[in-house]
């Protein structure tokens, strides 16, 4: 179709969490689609018309799906835009970005959804999948045109980093979306308990004299929401869970067979509130970094499967938004380029197998969002990532591709990185290694 020769990725360690496949094999791609895959493929050599790519025994996995990215496209483009975010994504092995609306760039008309998808296609580096806002202006009052947004391509609905607090509005949103088969993604934080909050409530908030956000703000919201899920049958997903009690509530809801899923982000299993040190604004996040006990509970949630997925929570901020007194600084951190190595920490740390770790960023988000990508299977999009799962390296702020450099993992030694990224059959990123 695109006139390019079919390509065979041979001599790879195929890791496909969706099917459980983990072993030597090859993938044949053509026309942007996986034509064939398996251990026996090309055992007798690659046909002449096919371009062979030798993977030298490295891990070949589905391209990563990042469930939560703030692009700032059409908004604060000095912080990031679709082009720079896409380049950062492919440098991190991400081939699908689910884009959240922000307070300054809503996604609440079909035209906005179509625009983001079209801009993604034009950029040609990743699959851009917008969420629609649940409420207009993420104000928590009036529902958006969820049906039309869904038809335009919205993969789910979320008010970004604002919790939908009004129980009746949430009830109606959950009820309404049952017709469209998409999830509602909640920022699980009871807003009145979190008002003016800067950091996790505890010893650190007290020492620093900053308003704390109690950990119970999360579980209160989740427990209430779960009751509404039970009432409505709507699909519900809790974003970036960060507390032991919140994870317990999800675990209990799943145990009762409810349609509830959740994700977390690397800061919540890779760091705790002590990263704030003396008012380090790069460590100001929403939800805030939590206690060590909570961090360990997040790891346990990942291990036992209560936490389905890991998203980067990519939220770029420029220096002017961070070099401020803590209470005035914007929350958020970039995460696209560090998602893969930080998820691999879970593997190297013995929490998850390689297959389970990659599932959190491939097959699990694909299942939640109903995407075709995220698997090595005949007919799936030819989105691949070639990974050296063992190589040690150090995350450096200066080495980031993203327009904003607000990482909280600067200087962190990690193991495993993306060597090449293939999007719809084309190699869009390669380290040359």
């Amino acid at each position: 179709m695109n006139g390019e020769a079919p390509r065979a990725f041979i001599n790879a360690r195929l890791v496909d969490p969706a099917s459980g496949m983990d072993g030597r094999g090859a993938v044949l791609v053509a026309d942007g689609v996986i034509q064939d895959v398996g251990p026996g493929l090309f055992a007798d050599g690659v046909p002449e018309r096919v371009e062979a790519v030798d993977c030298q025994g490295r891990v070949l996995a589905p391209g990563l799906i990042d469930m939560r990215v703030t692009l700032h496209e059409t908004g604060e483009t000095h912080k990031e835009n679709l082009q720079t975010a896409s380049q950062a994504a492919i440098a991190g092995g991400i081939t699908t970005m689910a884009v959240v609306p922000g307070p300054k760039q809503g996604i609440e008309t079909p035209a906005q959804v179509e625009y983001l998808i079209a801009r993604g296609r034009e950029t040609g580096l990743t699959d851009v999948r917008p969420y629609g806002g649940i409420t207009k202006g993420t104000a928590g009052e009036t529902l958006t045109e969820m049906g039309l947004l869904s038809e335009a391509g919205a993969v789910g609905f979320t008010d970004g980093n604002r919790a939908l607090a009004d129980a009746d509005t949430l009830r109606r949103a959950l009820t309404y979306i049952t017709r469209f088969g998409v999830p509602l993604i909640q920022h699980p934080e009871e807003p009145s308990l979190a008002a003016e909050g800067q950091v996790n409530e505890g010893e650190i908030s007290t020492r620093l004299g900053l308003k704390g956000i109690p950990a119970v703000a999360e579980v209160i919201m989740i427990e209430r929401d779960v009751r509404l899920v039970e009432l409505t049958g709507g699909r519900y997903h809790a974003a970036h869970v960060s507390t032991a009690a919140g994870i317990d509530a999800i675990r209990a809801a799943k145990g009762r067979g409810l349609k509830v899923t959740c994700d977390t982000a690397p800061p919540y299993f890779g760091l705790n509130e002590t990263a704030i040190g003396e008012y380090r604004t790069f460590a100001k996040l929403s939800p805030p970094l939590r206690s060590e006990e909570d961090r360990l509970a997040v790891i346990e949630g990942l291990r036992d499967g209560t936490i389905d997925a890991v998203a980067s929570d990519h939220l770029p901020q420029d220096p002017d938004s961070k070099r401020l007194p803590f209470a005035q600084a914007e929350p958020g951190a970039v995460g696209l380029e560090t998602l893969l190595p930080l998820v691999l920490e879970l593997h190297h740390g013995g929490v998850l197998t390689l297959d389970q770790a990659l599932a959190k960023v491939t097959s699990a988000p694909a299942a939640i969002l109903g995407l075709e990508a995220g698997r090595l299977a005949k007919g799936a999009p030819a989105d691949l990532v070639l990974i050296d799962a063992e190589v040690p390296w150090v995350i450096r702020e200066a080495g980031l591709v993203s327009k904003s450099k607000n990482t909280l993992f600067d200087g962190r030694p990690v193991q495993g990185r993306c060597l090449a990224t293939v999007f719809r059959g084309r190699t869009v990123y390669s380290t040359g290694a």
Partner: protein
Amino acid sequence: MNAPDANTRFAPRHILGIEGLSPDQITSLLDAADGFVALNRRREKKGESLRGLTVINLFFETSTRTQTSFEMAAKRLGADVINMSVATSSIYKGESLIDTAMTLNAMRPDVLVVRHPHSGAVELLSQKVTCAVINCGDGSHEHPTQALLDALTIRRRKGTIAGLVVTICGDIAHSRVARSNIHLLTAMGARVRVVGPPTLIPAMIERMGVEVFHDMVAGLADADIVMMLRLQLERMHGTFVPSLRENFHFYGLDEDKLAAAKPDALIMHPGPINRGVEIDTSVADDIDRSVITEQVEMGVAVRMACLEAVTAHQEAASP
């Protein structure tokens, strides 16, 4: 003048907080301040150690007593003093804190004395300037010179700080004075208690080495020092205490509650005091026990010691 052995004198680049200071460093500042108390009681009060230096009082939050105290301290050491009050609203409108700091720094002052409504703001500012910075209150975080002047008052009256029972009462949650005092007093070996309504005791404050009481009489039992704090209504969003009279009923210092403390207990208050809200007039004005005005006197001496300490470093640096 009044210079102890230059080799042992504590000469930090900035004074941003009490947390992290050693007992020796605190003692060094208190010893220096003690010397200035005597000077300040003389008819001729003018010192020379800051002659030719410029001190800017940069206040992002209004203050009369602290600003006056610092101004007087700097002038008594011979410095030129400029007072700058920056309304917080103008910060939101235009220039950022860091730009303000860098602009002033370019005028080559020697010391910036800074108060700011946000916790951590003074430390942030100190990272961007070449002059010395003294924190005179950042949000609910620290107010180091207040803790030092409280310590000097206590030490001069009681001879020591170690072993004393110090009860801090009132709005602990919003108080930078409480935090700095807790750091200082626990470092110096006092037993520190905090008393207040449960809504005004911040989470896990026990980890700072204090005992928590909600019953004021129990918290005052056998106390050597009673330190009262005002309700910081300007920092409260929502109801923390239902009414001022209810607060006074449970947490106002009057003769009845004070009877639980030691007979020679000292009554302290960082001011401004709100009579009938946290302290009864008869107690506040009890000349045998209230040392509130003495605290104000010690304030000037302590600030002189702090100004000398942060500029001693500069003396040494320049030929």
